[in-house]
């Protein structure tokens, strides 16, 4: 592995100061499951690694009405925090499929977002839940939607010397269900070829969709929301034919990529299939009453 200086700031201010001081030569260490692999392969060569693990207040997820996820919350702790809430099943399913148990015990939600991999598995379900990000930087704190934060492979809209501190999920509307599905070459511990997350929030009649979210991972350079497909569901009764129509729309609206894992054509087929299944699953969970 490449050699580096190791820094262990004890406050966010210290972390930000180190990021200002070392600029592009600095890398933040969260779970390390991506950073260490990149450094071993020589793909990243930071001269200064800044560990966030001595900064208090960044670990752990608290579920009340909404969900507050510290950026250093490990994936297995997130899974535990959302386990009993049907409206967050999509998050749980994504957490269970992110690497093996050992990786889930190291990798963090904040790291998964900031690494900005095309297949970042926590991002599609968080997009479906309208997650907001809290960041602290030289100019203080700001909040920004997760939607739009990822701007390319390994690229985010994070500003110089900023640290992601928290991911906030607002309370889910009543009768909400979510789901996450992904296709890999293996059945576990593999990068997604395509992943789809969905949220359906139903009206009091238990059939009409008042709010829909569909997000895709690994299909394009970044996870993204299939807004036109969402629009086909909003205000409509959730019926198989309508869900199929939305899935077709998601397929047509997806600028899929070809890479070592699959061709763009194959990805488009997966988009259609996974969107249909994820929406139906989310709707079924919503119809069972969501969290109530």
């Amino acid at each position, binding site marked *: *592995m*490449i*050699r*580096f*200086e*190791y820094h262990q700031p004890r406050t966010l201010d210290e972390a930000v100061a180190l990021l200002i001081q070392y600029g592009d030569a600095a890398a933040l*260490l969260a779970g*390390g*499951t991506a950073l*260490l*692999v990149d*450094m*071993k392969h020589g793909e990243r060569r930071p001269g200064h*690694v800044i*560990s966030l*693990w001595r900064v208090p207040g960044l670990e752990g997820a608290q579920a009340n009405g909404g969900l507050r996820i510290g950026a250093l919350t490990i994936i*297995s702790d997130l899974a535990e925090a959302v386990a009993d809430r049907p409206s967050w099943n999509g998050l749980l399913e994504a957490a*269970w499929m992110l*690497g*093996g*148990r*050992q*990786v889930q*015990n*190291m990798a963090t939600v904040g790291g998964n977002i900031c690494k900005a991999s095309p297949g970042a598995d926590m991002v599609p379900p968080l997009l479906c839940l309208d997650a907001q990000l809290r960041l602290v930087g030289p100019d203080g704190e700001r909040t920004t939607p997760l939607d739009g934060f990822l701007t390319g492979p390994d690229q985010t809209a994070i500003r110089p010397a900023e640290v992601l501190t928290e991911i906030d999920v607002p309370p889910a509307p009543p009768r909400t269900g979510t789901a996450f599905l992904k296709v890999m070459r293996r*059945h*576990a*511990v593999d990068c997604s070829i395509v992943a789809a997350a969905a949220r359906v929030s139903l009206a009091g009649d238990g059939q009409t969709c008042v709010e829909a979210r569909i997000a895709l991972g690994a299909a394009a350079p970044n996870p993204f929301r299939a807004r036109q497909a969402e629009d086909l569901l909003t205000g409509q009764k959730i019926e198989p034919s309508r869900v199929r129509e939305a899935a077709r729309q998601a397929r047509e609206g997806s600028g899929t990529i070809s890479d070592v894992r699959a061709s763009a054509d194959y990805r488009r087929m997966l988009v259609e299939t996974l969107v249909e299944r994820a929406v139906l699953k989310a709707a079924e969970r919503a119809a069972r009453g969501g969290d109530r």
Partner: protein
Amino acid sequence: MSQLPIQLNVNGQEYFMEVEPHRTLLEVLREDLALTGTKSNCQEGECGACTVMVDDRAVNSCLFLAVRAHGKRIMTIEGLAGQGKLHPVQEAFIRYGGVQCGYCTPGFIVSAAALLATHPRPTGEELTRALAGNICRCTGYVNIRRALRAAIEAGRNAT
């Protein structure tokens, strides 16, 4: 690069040492402490051969910087047996032939022991998820699962 002082509790024993920040827990366990039961293989968190427990949780020691392990409790395959008695999972691997070439075995056993410590009666699905990060390239999964089922059953009868 400067060395950093760290304190590790490995298998109940305290170690004070100085390590360079780029060294992984795996390297320090194997090279400095001669605990070679933990295996080095894929080096990128895919195979699970390097699994150890850090504060009771299974992790890939190949992706865990030794400096991050400062002040933590590490359990390796060497620490599972106590007072001359093998861990029940180790016993079951022997009895049910959960070992072929043996390279993945320490990782599997540590992963399983970590699971059983918190979930003594896991469902089949829980077992699968807990072991998904361990690969047996001999594909000896059937006997590994038989061994683990037996260990779980033995634990149930004992309580």
